């Protein structure tokens, strides 16, 4: 109560954020920069590259481990398995996009797994109403839950950890009650295809061409805009690299997927959600305000930002992601059950953290969170491959949990070590 507010300080009424519990310390002595040779990189950028590097190392390692007489170059990055790996990433990835926004805003959502279960279960039960109502049910359930939890956090000032911890129990209870031990099969063909379908190869090629065209257009427009504002446009090498490297990645990706019948629909949905999330966080005022709210809620509020509305909106977006995730999850499994989605929230949080998101809020990127989701899925996928081909052990799931836990702690540990040195 009163003693918590230091004397002579005007009190401000606002929702709590994670950083209130552990205020971030800012080292004012040196800029957070790390130099590699003559290159100086902001720590943030460096972290993204480190994660990318880690992903490549993990991939190469698994590729090497899965070399067998049948597959002398390894199984892991084989288009068949790669396509499967991306499908496994989809659900965690979609949830990580929503979770990233929640964490950046200085909040946390522990109810995601239960919401996925409830939204998926309701959608499966609503199949009798037809396709569109069934699909909408999942989204509506997610958004409404987001609205309830978001309102409690934003307008009642209850910490999100508590609200969503309660939600985790309550929504799980709701789905168990609704499902009553049954497993409901997904019967509607279009619903099923969300998990099993493909983007037709020719459509994939067209989309890739469009993406590359957009990339060229926006890169050139950016340079024109910089010149117009009297800033130095990026040099020729940088411009070409900025167009060519992603173009190659897109082309190789589409080629690989098309050898397997096209881009799997769950992967397509994940990529769409990730692009939308990246756009929202990086190129809109909403995104900028999100980082401000998590970075310093008091300063954000005094700068005219409506904290409560932004926090509420963030939880609604998280709910929508949980709804979409639930559709992909149930469609991939072919059914909905009471325990569906258990512990998914931890996967989503772990993906964000591995991708360099600060749990204190104000820091993190969609790209990093997606990378984190991919790293986690790679470990899962790689280890089950190994257990089948080499280890022949019956304990692969258990091993996966142990390794994933260790990787999560190690990722943050390396990050902290890096920061301490600078």
């Amino acid at each position, binding site marked *: 109560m009163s*003693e918590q507010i230091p004397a002579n300080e*005007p009190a401000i009424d606002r929702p709590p954020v994670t950083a209130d519990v552990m205020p971030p310390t800012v080292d004012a002595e040196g800029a957070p920069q790390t130099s590699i040779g003559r290159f100086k990189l902001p720590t943030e950028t460096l972290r993204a590259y480190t994660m990318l590097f880690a992903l490549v190392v993990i991939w190469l390692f698994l590729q090497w481990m899965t070399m067998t007489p049948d597959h002398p170059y390894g199984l892991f990055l084989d288009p068949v398995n790669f396509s499967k790996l991306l499908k496994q990433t989809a659900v965690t990835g979609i949830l990580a996009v929503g979770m990233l926004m929640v964490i950046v805003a200085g909040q946390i959502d522990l109810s995601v797994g239960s919401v996925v279960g409830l939204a998926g279960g309701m959608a499966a039960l609503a199949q009798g109403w037809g396709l569109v109502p069934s699909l909408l049910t999942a989204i509506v359930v997610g958004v409404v839950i987001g609205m309830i939890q978001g309102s409690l956090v934003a307008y009642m000032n209850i910490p999100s950890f508590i609200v969503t911890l309660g939600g985790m129990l309550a929504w799980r209870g709701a789905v168990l009650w609704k499902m009553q031990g049954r497993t409901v099969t997904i019967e509607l063909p279009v619903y099923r295809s969300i998990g099993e379908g493909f983007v037709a190869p020719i459509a994939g090629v067209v989309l890739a061409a469009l993406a590359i065209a957009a990339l060229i257009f926006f890169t050139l427009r950016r340079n024109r805009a910089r010149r117009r504002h009297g800033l130095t446009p990026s040099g020729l090498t940088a411009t070409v690299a900025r167009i060519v490297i992603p173009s190659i990645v897109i082309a190789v990706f589409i080629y690989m997927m098309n050898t397997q019948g096209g881009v799997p629909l769950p992967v397509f949905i994940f990529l769409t959600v990730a692009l939308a999330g990246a756009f929202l966080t990086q190129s809109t005022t909403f995104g900028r305000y999100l980082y401000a709210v998590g970075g310093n809620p008091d*300063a954000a509020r005094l*700068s005219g930002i409506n904290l409560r509305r932004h926090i509420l909106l963030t939880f609604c977006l998280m709910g929508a992601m949980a709804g979409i995730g639930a559709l992909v999850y149930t469609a991939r499994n072919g059914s909905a059950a009471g325990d569906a989605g258990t512990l998914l929230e931890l996967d989503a949080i772990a993906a964000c953290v591995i991708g360099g998101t600060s749990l204190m809020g104000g820091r993190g990127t969609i790209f990093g969170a997606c990378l984190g989701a991919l790293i986690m899925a790679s470990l899962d996928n790689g280890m089950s491959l190994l257990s089948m081909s080499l280890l022949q052990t019956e304990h692969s799931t258990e091993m996966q949990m142990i390794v994933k836990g260790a990787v999560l702690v190690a990722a943050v540990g390396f990050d902290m070590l890096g920061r301490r040195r600078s």
Partner: protein
Amino acid sequence: MADKTDAPLLEMQNITKSFPGVRALDGVTFDLYAGEIHALVGENGAGKSTLMKVLGGVYPAGSYGGEIMLNDEVHRFNSVRDAENAGIAVIYQELSLVKEMTIGENIFLGREPRRFGVVLWDELYSRASRLLKELHLQLDPRTPVGHLGIGQQQLVEIAKALSQEARILVLDEPTAALTDTEVATLFGILNRLRERNVGMIYISHKLDEVFRISDRITVLRDGRTVGTESTKQLDEARVIARMVGREVGNIFPEAKHERGRVIFEARGIRVEDPNIKGKLLVNDVGFHVRRGEVLGIAGLMGAGRSDLLMAIFGAHAGRTTGEIYVEGERVRVGRPSDAIEHGVGFVTEDRKRFGLILDQTILNNMTLAGLPRLSGEFLTDVDAEAAAGARSMRELRVKAPSVFTVAGTLSGGNQQKVVLAKWLLTNPKILFLDEPTRGIDVGAKQEIYALINRLAREGLAIVLVSSELPEVLGLSDRVIVLHEGRVTGEFKRAEATPEAVMACATGHTKRDSG
């Protein structure tokens, strides 16, 4: 006064300390005798804090050059603990007390008197109460520290240092948050410690206090010692000249402001304390400002100055009533965005807490409040922002490599300029400035004074709150004085003498107001 023929208690010789790319200390020499108060002054970034961190063992031996000698013996501190054991106690600006614990628990934290691992509470509290009595502090050692004001907390820190039998006490900006009475109490205690032969290093930006309390003054500039002299042989102008490396003329440039029509008026503002029902922090305060006018609000800490501005800006947690008029029209301000929309800008007091997002770039900070105007309602335009940010950086002379430098790495003065730029980029008609020069160095202060005058000349209405009386008197066209939430006086520039304003600030009501 100490006998100067004795060997000094502390000698720091030729101290050199480098950070990547910066030489923070360059051959600094400093000494301290028992029973003296030696003031250390210099602009921000001059190296005062670095020097004290070397002394306090924050930077371990080997990471700096030069030697530290206590009573002619070379000491090498590898940790803060080593320094403490050698009798050096540093009291930092940010207090390091645990608010939930009592005074006694805080004083003996980590060194509780105990037997077989069990804390002897009676002994702890009786020793604590003896310590407090020695300092003439009338406090119950069982009071939680969180119940004390900042000033008393500071004194508890000093008691804690004394309980460790510190022979050298370093005080870093000890009066930054204190009222005048609390400063007097603190100085009384420092004087008693001087008699008990404790050597004290006193770091402060407030030169009048430095002159009141210190025996000698050392000026640091750009990591070098400019000189050490007895306080009696110095005056403020000479110290400032040494700090900035040039003679300073009039700090407050004479300004002739063209005053226009009334642009902003507040009537009958009342703010209730959100924690204590029925207590009014601001009680029926009204004021108006004209175009091109600087209105100063003077008053002591706790008089309700910041509460008044926060409330008008729609950011106070307490229940607020009253009327606000912008350009003659009644407006409703429920939250800060309303105020911003009506052309009010607010440079708040505590820039680290209320002004900046420390781990974001200068650019993101500058454009935060005016984002829709600078960039777009929904989509952001980074390049348009960067261009506006770069312009502001040039105009306000923010010293940083680029607009993408992280705000937390800037010096106080440059951080304050970033906050100012943020509000100027909202295109305000009225600008509230709450302690705009707190904790920033003399050079940056002067730049901000010049900026205030320029903005007023350009037609901005400015409301200035400051604890530094010369600042309010030097910049304002008109001054109102608050005391315990009420207006106790209003002065025109010509009639505002420090004595008259201070009288109102301490509760005397001004009789005439001709």
